[in-house]
């Protein structure tokens, strides 16, 4: 089995590259957007040029102030401002659009992949943390994509232009500037690594935080009735504080790395002036540079410093975004070990299926074997009851039979086909498991039933209920099929939840029905009624029923007794009870005793 991938060991560039390939929308129209970005950034020079021109030619022109020239210049500049502002708007709007579209795609992909993962892998990550991965981790990326990503490219361009400009003026001074910035550029890698770790911690803490909150919210009744609010709050507080500490730490690195840029800039300014003087004095290379050129150079340096500062800022944001991004990609990287054979998969024939376990063994990851040497064949149409002590492996058997897990040894065959070769869609429509712990969605009763058969009409649902002997119950509900079941079905009684799960299975109309304690919370009268109904409905289907109440076993064609992971007895009820001192005889004796 595989653990859920944290994504934490995907490199930074790797993350961006793979992130983009998962969200192709991000690349859409990128050239136009880039052109707009360049245009928008050109807007920064419009006003300085206009002012300088007005001063030189409009105000201090040789012929005195020139109103006409100034007016035309202003109009032209205004047009340029409108144009570049529009470019800025268009660029940002496009970035919002592509990144939101790209991220929505990524979110949905990741969500789907979580469902495609095997049950055991899903269980290696807590629900709250999974939710964080498809919600806030994704949100983290958007800020960067809109305000960082592309503008980083623009600022690299600006840095290059400024460098060229500097070299044109004086390659020596250009060298000085680059030397002054070298420590910053070199330390960048170090800070990026630190930031990467810091932000990864922040994202991990968000997952922990959401898990810490969701658990007591779901288990509110237990927290309440055992009055453990204080301890629960302590645990949440610990997660909140850990998240706060991680965020503050990350912010510290951010602030520090950003401030370094300013120091380099100061150093570069001083360096330019000093080296400029030396150059002017001919102390270094015999080069003649004028005072004016040195001063002009000092201004060009600001053209270099601005984008460098912005660039470092973007790199920081990038680490934050990458931290979120790689967690989402991590989901997609987690292999689904239960591989759907895909188009080559076989389709199960319609009609009752026969079942065979061949030398099946199973151990949960890192645990001892739970099932051993299971050899079992169930002819099509047979009704089999599985009984055994708590923890003997009955549910495990059911999960292997419905391929929620693959056996560690041996194989499970349906109609002679290894389950691993059966197409997923065919499997899910032919084989239905009503699990021990049913789950209802916060919707109406009808909507929950339709999880069994999409598009079932109300009449079909009512008919299925009547078949199961649940007509009276349904009729007794004030809102009938429109009854809202509440979160996890908690507005229904435990027994009613099981009834809905059964109704769902009945609608699904499977060829092999596996019931794992499906009526354990239903009252005896109703349970026996359902039992009789099921007996009728099972004809033409194969069924495997796990039950603690041996009434089910008594009615089955065959009973399979599981004990400590092995099948110790099998045969019809009447025969098994006769085997004195057997496991089944023991179970039955206590059942009879209980029945009173």
């Amino acid at each position, binding site marked *: 089995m595989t653990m859920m991938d944290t994504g934490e060991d995907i490199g930074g560039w790797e993350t961006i590259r793979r992130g983009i390939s998962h969200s192709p929308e991000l690349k859409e129209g990128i050239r136009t957007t880039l052109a707009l970005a360049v245009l928008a950034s050109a807007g920064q020079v419009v*006003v300085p040029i206009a*002012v300088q021109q007005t001063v030189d030619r409009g*105000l201090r022109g040789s012929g*005195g102030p020139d109103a006409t020239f*100034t*007016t035309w210049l202003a109009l032209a500049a205004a047009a340029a401002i409108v144009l570049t*502002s*529009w470019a800025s*708007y268009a660029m940002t709007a496009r*970035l919002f659009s592509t990144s939101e579209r790209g991220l*929505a795609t990524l*979110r949905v992909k990741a969500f789907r992949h979580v*469902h495609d993962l095997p049950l055991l892998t899903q*269980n290696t990550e807590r629900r709250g943390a999974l*939710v964080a991965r498809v*919600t806030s981790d994704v949100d983290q990326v958007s800020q960067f994509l*809109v305000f960082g990503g592309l503008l980083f490219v623009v600022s690299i361009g600006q840095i290059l232009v400024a460098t060229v400009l500097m070299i044109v003026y004086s390659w020596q001074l250009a060298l000085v500037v680059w030397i002054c910035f070298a420590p910053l550029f070199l330390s960048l890698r170090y800070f990026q690594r630190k930031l990467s770790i810091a932000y990864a911690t922040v994202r991990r803490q968000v997952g922990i*935080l959401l*898990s810490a*909150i969701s658990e007591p919210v779901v*288990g509110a009744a237990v927290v309440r*009735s*055992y*009055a453990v609010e204080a*301890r629960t*709050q302590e645990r949440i507080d610990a997660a*909140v504080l850990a998240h*706060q500490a991680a*965020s503050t730490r990350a912010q*510290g690195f*951010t*602030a520090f790395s*950003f*401030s370094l840029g*300013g120091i380099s*800039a*100061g*150093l570069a300014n*001083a360096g330019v*002036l000093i080296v400029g*003087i030396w150059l002017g004095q001919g102390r270094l290379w015999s080069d003649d540079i*004028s*005072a004016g050129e040195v001063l002009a150079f000092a201004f060009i340096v600001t053209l270099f410093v601005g984008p460098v500062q912005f660039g470092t800022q973007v790199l920081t944001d990038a680490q934050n975004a990458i931290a979120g991004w790689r967690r989402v990609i991590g989901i997609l990287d987690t292999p689904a070990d239960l591989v759907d054979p895909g188009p080559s998969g076989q389709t199960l024939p319609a009609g009752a299926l026969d079942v065979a376990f061949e030398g099946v063994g199973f151990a949960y990851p*890192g*645990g001892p074997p739970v099932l051993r040497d299971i050899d079992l064949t169930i002819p099509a149409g047979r009704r089999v009851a599985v*009984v055994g002590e*708590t*923890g003997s492996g009955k549910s495990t058997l059911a999960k292997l039979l419905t391929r*929620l897990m693959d056996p560690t040894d041996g194989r499970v065959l349906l109609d002679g086909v290894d389950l691993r070769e059966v197409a997923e869609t065919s499997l*899910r429509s032919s084989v239905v498991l009503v699990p021990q712990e049913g789950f209802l969605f916060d919707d109406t009763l009808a909507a929950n039933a339709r999880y069994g058969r999409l598009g079932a009409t109300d009449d079909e649902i009512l008919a299925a209920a009547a078949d199961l002997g649940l007509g009276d119950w349904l009729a007794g509900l004030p809102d009938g099929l429109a009854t809202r079941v509440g979160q996890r079905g908690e507005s*229904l009684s*435990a027994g*009613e939840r099981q009834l809905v799960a059964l109704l769902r299975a009945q609608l699904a109309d499977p060829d092999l029905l596996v019931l794992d304690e499906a009526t354990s*919370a239903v009252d005896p*009268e109703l349970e*026996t009624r359902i039992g009789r109904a099921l007996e009728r409905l099972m004809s033409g289907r194969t069924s495997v029923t796990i039950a*603690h*109440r041996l009434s089910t076993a008594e009615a089955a064609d065959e009973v399979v007794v599981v004990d400590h992971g092995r099948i110790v007895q099998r045969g019809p009820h009447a025969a098994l009870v006769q085997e004195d001192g057997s496991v089944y005889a023991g179970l039955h004796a206590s059942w009879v005793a*209980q029945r*009173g």
Partner: protein
Amino acid sequence: MTDERVSGAGSTGAGFAVLWVAIKREPAVFTISTIGSLLFGALTVADAWVLGWSTDHVVLPAFRDGEIGGGLLWAVLGLFLGVAILRAVGIVARRLGAGVMQYRMQARSRRAVTRQYLSLPMEWHQKHPTGELLSNANSDVEAAWGPIAPLPMAVGTVAMMVIAVVQMLFADLVLAVVGLLVFPLVIATNVIYQRLAQGWATRAQQLRGELSEIAHESFDGAMVVKTLGREPEETARFRAKAEELRETNIRVGRIRAAFDPTLAALPNIAVLIVLVLGVHRVLSGATVAGDVVTVTYLLTVVSFPIRSIGWLLGEFPRSVVGYRRVDAVLRASGAMPYGEATAPVSGDGARLDVSGLAYGYHADRPLLRDLSFTVEPGRTVALVGATASGKSTLTNLLTRLVDVDAGAIRVDGLDVRELARGELARVLSVVPQTAFLFDDTVRGNITLGADVPDEEVWEALRTAQADGFVAALSDGLDTRLGERGTSLSGGQRQRISLARALVRRPRLLVLDDATSAVDPEVEARILAGLRSEDRDATLVVVAYRKATIGLADEVLFLSDGAIVDRGPHDELVGRNDDYARLVNAYEAEHEGVTS
């Protein structure tokens, strides 16, 4: 904590109100970061001054005279570096300060909001999906305090703006006034922005909540989704919401995309107007060229504060929505009132009195009507009733997960509503119908943090017949069970849940069908254990099985919302047909099979 209500029609006022809440909470950090910001601003100006000084005193003389003292060169280096280092200090103070403030406020809100989750009644929880609560605690809190990040910068630059404006007014009043027309325009732009963005931002936060809801529910029910092959439909459900969020975010983004450049353009346009007007005024002799240049320069200085205030205002719509959503949780009322009384914890079983109890989930449809019964100390009572007859509801009322609509529940004569918070749990333990285990160790799940010696834990496990499998776990009591106890079988979970109640040695123990997933043999042993334990706890068991019922001194038969009959099992079977039919269903079945 954040009891300030943010009001105001537009989000600007409300946005400032949210910030004010933060400033009042964190005045020191706010001051430090603002000083950092001012330092940064001042040193940016100083940088220009250093360049000027170096030009006049070092560069120009050096080129003119050809010779310059090494000391002056060091001075240049020192000045530039000094300013740069101080400015770096300013940056760190501003950014770190803003961060500290922001994360402190977040942590505060998160703690307050989760405290509220823990104290709000079950009814409230049933109306608020888990996913939404996660979103409140995460995304909404983050949104609420988002503007703290750009706050110090904005405040710091206000000083810059004020100085520039005053200078402008001194330079040329007319030009200054024209230039200052930029401010009403900035305000108008902001008003329009807030109006346009508020609705969409609200919708976006709401959708984030709903998306989180779908994700949480869908992952919670992953096994059902998988067994029924409903992955495509679940994905479609999630996709629909994700796409709605996407469209909304794009709209918010478009409005935001227009806001920033508009704010940036306004001072620029003002500069151009001032230039044109300035030239005319110079021509008419009303002013001199130098003043025109000064005013335009000052206007460009002003444009930076305007932009940084814009970044602050830009965050407001989301912030206000986030704050309001969090605030709604904090204001949710209905937290259960508790009394002052304490309950005696030692001694024999507690006496339970239920009188005239009525309860319904819907006001017009009472589920339990006029229920009255007494359980004497040390007695065992079985509560029997058909599916959905209200047994679990009654146990919830007993533990005060909900309060009665009418009547009263008394333990040892004390109305449970008079007990102080946490007192009831010291007397009474309930084993719920569906076991809920925490992602914790076996020990943690049983003690729930209480200081209980291991021997007592083992003893409880023994009574619950759970000692065998726990001993076989790799780390014994220290084995972690996974979220909701996934690494155990259904029956094993139930038994841990049972041990959790037993270890508390409650004076009143309520078992709500707590052995349904346990096979008959084990159940028989557990029941025997409960009975032989010489604890004289009062026991209320919800059960169908006759063995369990047989253990009871008395049976309460619940039907149609009332106790329709009560007495020893044998008598009830004889006189109440409904009861007999319910509990004898298996035998009837058995007869049917064998005959």
